[in-house]
């Protein structure tokens, strides 16, 4: 029995909703998964009655809700990915679940890093901002060549300061 094996129906649901491969195994043959967990018989019976389609929809909605929140922090990045945004986020989101009250900023930062690693485009000015939001730094100066100003891509220096815990940002445009 793995050390972090769930010991309640809620724990089992959390694992099923967050782990696609395990969920697939459970849907195909629940009896191959249930013995991995130390659940009371009544809770095992309850889980055996779950509907596969509902389990998958609930899991998909969690990813959609995360993407919706992330899009508030990195809208240009998400827009730039176009129709691939959901699939790319889905691929990333299965492997990482943020866990602080700043989870949406953290998720946005991690997703940008995932895109960078995989060679997909992301907006540098947005990444700089969420990276600062997630740090404990009091100030930062960063460069981004892709800030959008009046509908045009513009190079900027971003000055970010944390005042009374709230990040503030000023952008200085660099004219070519």
């Amino acid at each position, binding site marked *: 029995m793995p050390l972090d094996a769930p010991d309640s129906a*809620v724990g089992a649901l*959390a694992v099923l909703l967050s782990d696609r491969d395990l969920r697939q195994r459970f849907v195909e043959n629940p009896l191959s998964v249930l013995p991995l967990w130390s659940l009371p018989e009544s809770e095992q019976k309850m889980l055996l009655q779950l509907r596969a389609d509902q389990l998958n929809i*609930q899991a998909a909605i969690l990813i959609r809700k995360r993407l919706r929140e992330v899009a508030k922090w990195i809208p240009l990045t998400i827009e730039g990915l176009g129709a691939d945004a959901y699939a790319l986020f889905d691929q990333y989101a299965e492997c990482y679940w943020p866990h602080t009250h700043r989870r949406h900023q953290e998720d946005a930062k991690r997703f940008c890093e995932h895109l960078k690693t995989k060679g997909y485009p992301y907006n540098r000015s947005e990444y700089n901002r969420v990276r600062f939001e997630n740090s404990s730094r009091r100030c930062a100066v960063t460069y981004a060549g892709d800030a959008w100003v009046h509908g045009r891509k513009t190079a900027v220096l971003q000055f970010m300061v944390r005042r009374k815990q*709230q990040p503030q940002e000023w952008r200085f445009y660099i004219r070519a």
Partner: protein
Amino acid sequence: MTTVNESNAVKISQCIGVGYRRPLAQWILSRPAEIQCLEITAEHFFDDPDTLQLLKGRYPLMLHGLGLSLGTPGPLDQTYLQQFVHVCRQADPLWVSEHIAFTRSGHVDLGHLNPIPYTEATLALMVDHTQELAQACDKPVILENITSHLHIPGTLTEPEFINRLCEKAGCGLLLDVTNAYVNSRNHNFDVRQWLHQINPDVIQQLHIVGYANEQGVFYDSHSQDIQWELYEFTQTVVEYCQVQSIIIERDNNIPAADQIQTEILQLQQCLGWTQNDAA
């Protein structure tokens, strides 16, 4: 411990307000007459005490939590609870609210609300956690029904669970009319019959926002204008029980302030509430 009944001492009635969101900050801070009460989300203020100070005193406040995960077996996350309590002390709300749900368990934090099994064991757990929250905050607690696409076969129905939870924990219900409606469409039940199984005395506050419908599946997207059937259902709820406040809970695709003002006025008109009725 403060219970919902004690909260009647500071009772407000027939107040319509909004959930505080950053894009609406300027409008909310200008204190428009249409907003009679304000709901603030605890997690938004864990790192922002200054904005909280600006809001305090301008409106009757309600504090709403998203991540305490009252439905998770085991003790509440004490660090998270203390952050919640800290915001509560600063805001001094009329009451605090959370969800009949779980968001995390063990090492997995799903970040959003998920259903819990409606069983005796979960009921006992929710009662304990609700009482702990009320005691820690020294405020009345009300709990909200959620949407779920996943039906977990339990030993109690949702209304039975809600009624017994409110009775045993001494808490009230924050009835999300949109969530109830969305569930009724996805799980094919009559939402009015569902409502009439709930003890009317426990319903204290309502949430409302438009739903999304994609290929016949209904979602609590929090991104749409309020649909007419939700106004109608809200009317039914208000005829059924004494609601103290209604909060328009828009999170995404947030429109200009005048659209929200229109929704507040439509609610007032539809319910026969006037601004003078608000206390």
